[in-house]
């Protein structure tokens, strides 16, 4: 798509006559075509003077791209200096300095005029422009003379821009202003002058304002100040901006993402808690059922049994009554609003799951969009050089370790090629493979072993529990015995990751990133192996057949509570011993200079484990998010304190953008999906216990909805009945998944097409570069020969004058 140069020498009157001086300054270049035509004129002039046949052949072939031109190959070889400015003569340099690519941002007027052009184009073409109409460069076009002139009138350009901006709609106008690389004061001025860009920040206070407008503006300012004040007060209750700034200043963006993830989980839990409190806890708390009195011992905080059993904490407290709200004693004529507890229970938890699903999918797609790009063929080197310096780092020590880090990474990436080039021998490759296989066998074996162990232990624990109760052993002892299962789970969670780290050290990896992914996978499998048998144990029949457990949902809820609390205690212990004591040992005993590193992967997986437990237990313990929130808040501050005192920035290669994507996808897929599956299974298939809870007389929890819909149907409303049938029909799922598949296919095709376009555009840019080089060489030749010719003529004239005089 090279611009076809019209080389035919038109009638002389169509082209302005160029003197020698005019060539140097492009002030006289009014039109791109004229430039090309005049250039052709000069070249033909030169060739007429010199009559070099090879040049003519080159010129004739120009309409095609320079590369395919055979004549180009026949041209005499010239010294191919790269486009270095030192090999050019002054005339060429002067022309080059006016090249559009070198004038970007040189003057404010140029920027303004460029944005005037863009606004004009935006206004005229609302639809996406066709590819052939797209301007070939993002640089200021040569059509606009003002862009080239440094002294172009800033005020004039501003007026033009203002007139264009005023014709845009308000939001487009603000968007355009936001994207301009101008000083803030200039932008503010422009905003003030364009009346349709209503910006909230600057309110014009004019003396000529009427009394009403003045009061109106004062009111607006006052309200705004109140709002900002409220926001800043709200900030005080949120995890502080300063804490995050301190962390990013010393440890960089990688460790920061752990804390941001923690904040995100906290917000999810707050949402669940609010929903549950308003729709489940408060209605039931205002109509308490009859419960036996119990005493409070301290052990309840750990075991969750005893005083807590018959409180709002657990499922067993809730009844299957229907009350009427707004039915007071004084106001008997008020309309009765029935509040059905079972329906409220199931719908609250179901809708909070649904909303969490939507939010998670949205976060995941946003994170994916940020970290994966179309046509991302750029290797690590460019990213390492231009994006590796984290501007947030402010501590001198971290900065120095950052220097070291970057230097090591650059050296590593340079030697990567050497490493790949030297093929390791077959025996070494076999050795590596066998070590890898051994490592995987060990880790998978340990995972299976832990899973089986937990499964058998939970069954034997149930047997022991029923035996203990039959034998009449004191309650407190029995309850403390129940703590052994959570203890075992937490010990496995603590110890196994260290073992996996050790195994990972023994193995050799091609890329350091591989090690991190392998370690995450192994830890994830371990967590799944723990949660799987536990879920099976809770949902299975053995629990329901144990006669001593009257209310199995409360029992399961208590188990989950115990798991969470013991997990919390172990995290604190791990922070204290793993980081503080280890640092003391490292520095004092082992005399190492380095403090321990903050292991991001392990900590994040612990958080995800805790959140999965919360989601699993949401049905059985409505107030579980509150416990989780307290746990997260305490963990935030303890981890931050420990981080500041005991740890150093991690050495491993973590790409911050990929990290958040990985964390969120781990949260979404194994964790949230598993919890949703368990929840659905509980609601549809499991028989609730008959003596407690809001579903006590039903065969399954979903029957409550069916009954309610039937009742509504009897009252004449067909809508709910049909919508219920609609939802229960499996055909709907097929339709929905078919639609999703079509959408995904469509997006894949779009991405494919974009990749092809990128390839074509890259080739075009390379061709344009070749054209540019060629033209600059020709210009330089021309100037050189002209200079020589001028000298010759000058010496000829001097000779003539000389000969005349003598």
């Amino acid at each position: 798509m090279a611009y076809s140069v019209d080389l035919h020498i038109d009638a002389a009157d169509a082209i302005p006559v160029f003197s020698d001086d005019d060539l140097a300054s492009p002030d006289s270049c009014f039109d791109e075509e004229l430039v090309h035509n005049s250039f052709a004129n000069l070249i033909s002039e030169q060739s007429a003077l010199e009559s070099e046949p090879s040049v003519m052949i080159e010129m004739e072939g120009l309409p095609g791209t320079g590369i395919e031109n055979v004549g180009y190959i026949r041209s005499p070889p010239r010294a191919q200096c790269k486009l270095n400015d030192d090999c050019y003569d002054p005339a060429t340099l002067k022309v080059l300095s006016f090249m559009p690519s070198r004038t970007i941002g040189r003057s404010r007027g140029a920027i303004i005029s460029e944005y005037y052009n863009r606004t004009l184009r935006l206004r005229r073409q609302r639809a996406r422009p066709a590819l052939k109409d797209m301007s070939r460069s993002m640089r200021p076009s040569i059509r606009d003379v003002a862009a080239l002139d440094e002294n172009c009138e800033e005020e004039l350009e501003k007026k033009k821009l203002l007139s264009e901006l005023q014709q845009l709609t308000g939001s487009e106008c603000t968007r355009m202003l936001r994207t301009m690389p101008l000083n803030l004061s200039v932008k503010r001025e422009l905003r003030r002058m364009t009346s349709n860009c209503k910006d909230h920040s600057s309110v014009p206070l004019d003396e000529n304002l009427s009394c009403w407008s003045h009061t109106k503006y004062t009111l607006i300012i006052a309200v705004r100040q109140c709002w900002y004040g409220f926001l800043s007060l709200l900030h005080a209750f949120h995890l502080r901006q300063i804490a995050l700034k301190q962390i990013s200043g010393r440890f960089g963006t990688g460790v920061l993402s752990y804390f941001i993830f923690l904040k995100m989980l906290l917000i999810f839990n707050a949402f669940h808690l609010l929903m549950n409190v308003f729709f489940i806890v408060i209605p039931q708390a205002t109509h308490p059922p009859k419960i036996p009195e119990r005493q409070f011992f301290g052990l309840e905080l750990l075991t969750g049994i005893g005083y807590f059993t018959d409180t709002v904490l657990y499922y067993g407290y809730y009844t299957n009554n229907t009350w009427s709200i707004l039915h007071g004693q004084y106001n008997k004529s008020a309309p009765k609003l029935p509040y059905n507890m079972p329906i409220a229970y199931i719908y609250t938890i179901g809708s909070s799951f649904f909303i969490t699903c939507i939010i998670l999918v949205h976060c995941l797609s946003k994170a994916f969009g940020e970290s994966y790009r179309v046509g991302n063929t750029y290797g690590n080197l460019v990213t390492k050089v231009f994006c590796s310096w984290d501007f947030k780092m402010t501590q001198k020590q971290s900065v120095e370790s950052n220097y070291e880090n970057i230097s090591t990474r650059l050296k590593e990436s340079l030697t990567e090629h050497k490493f790949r080039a030297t093929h390791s021998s077959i025996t070494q490759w076999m050795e590596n493979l066998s070590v890898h296989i051994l490592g995987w066998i060990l880790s998978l074996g340990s995972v299976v072993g832990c899973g089986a162990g937990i499964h058998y232990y939970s069954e034997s624990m149930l047997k022991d529990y029923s035996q203990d109760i039959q034998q009449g052993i004191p309650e407190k002892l029995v309850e403390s015995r129940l703590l052994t299962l959570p203890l075992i789970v937490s010990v496995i969670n603590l110890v196994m990751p260290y073992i996996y780290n050790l195994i990972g050290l023994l193995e050799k990896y091609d890329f350091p990133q591989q090690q991190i992914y392998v370690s995450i996978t192994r830890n994830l499998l371990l967590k799944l192996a723990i949660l799987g048998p536990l879920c099976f144990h809770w949902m299975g029949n053995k629990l329901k057949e144990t006669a001593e457990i009257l209310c199995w949902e409360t029992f399961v809820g208590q188990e989950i509570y115990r798991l969470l609390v013991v997990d919390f205690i172990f995290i604190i212990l791990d922070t204290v011993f793993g980081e503080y004591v280890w640092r003391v040992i490292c520095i004092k005993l082992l005399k190492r200079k380095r403090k321990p590193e903050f292991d991001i992967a392990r900590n994040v997986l612990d958080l995800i484990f805790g959140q999965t437990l919360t989601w699993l237990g949401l049905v059985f313990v409505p107030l579980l998010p509150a416990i989780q929130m307290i746990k997260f808040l305490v963990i935030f501050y303890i981890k931050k304190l420990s981080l500041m005192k005991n740890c150093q920035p991690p050495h491993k290669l973590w790409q911050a953008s990929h990290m958040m994507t990985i964390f969120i996808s781990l949260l979404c897929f194994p964790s949230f999906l598993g919890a949703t599956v368990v929840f659905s299974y509980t609601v549809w298939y499991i028989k609730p216990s008959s003596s407690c809870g809001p579903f006590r007389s039903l065969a399954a929890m979903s029957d409550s909805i069916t009954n309610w819909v039937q009742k509504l149907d009897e009252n004449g409303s067909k809508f709910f009945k049909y919508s219920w049938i609609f939802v229960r029909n499996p055909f709907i799922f097929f339709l929905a998944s078919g639609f999703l598949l079509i959408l995904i296919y469509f997006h894949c095709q779009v991405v494919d097409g974009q990749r092809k376009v990128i390839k074509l555009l890259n080739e075009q840019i390379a061709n344009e570069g070749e054209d540019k080089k060629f033209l600059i060489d020709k210009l330089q030749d021309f100037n050189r020969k002209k200079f020589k010719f001028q000298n010759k003529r000058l010496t000829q004239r001097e000779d003539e004058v000389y000969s005349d005089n003598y």
Partner: protein
Amino acid sequence: MAVFVTYCSLKYLAEYCLTKQYNNEADMVQKTVPANITEVKLYHRYHALAPEIVPRYFNDSADIKLPLELISEMPELKENPFHQKLLQVFSEDKQDNMSFNDFLNMFSILSDLTPQHLKAYYAFKVYDFNSDNFICQSDLEVMLGKLTGDEELSHEEVQLVCHKIMEEGDLDGDGKLSFADFEYMITRAPDFMSTFHIRI
């Protein structure tokens, strides 16, 4: 925990009252009102750099400029190897002075709300050390020197890195990275937005 909460709320109450009083005075003195809490915070920082020269309350008509050396003492900028060029890029009058508008401009570009190509534009200007509107070989060498600090790479390693970057990034083959090349490269690097960011 309660003590912490009370302390935070008191602090913010104080800041809020200060902002209110400050804006009232500003209203009486001149026309423009500072836009939001961030601008107020930044003005406090600007004032804290030179309390004798910079007036306590924002005054649009006063022409206060601070020398760049004073601004580079800020803790957020001091240890950054690129801070000198960064300050030069944002100082409008090219005489090593920064007015409050320049200061505000700089921190707003470095915040996380700026669109990507605007950041890319200013990043290009920062990394173009010889200010010729291209990132050439010498610019890359200076940049690598600044990135590695004391742990310098050897001469061949520097040449190799520069050569590879030119190979990957230079699309039109002129041996330098123009703004279009740089923008194309940098918008494909997902880490750029998070690293070219300073918190205030």
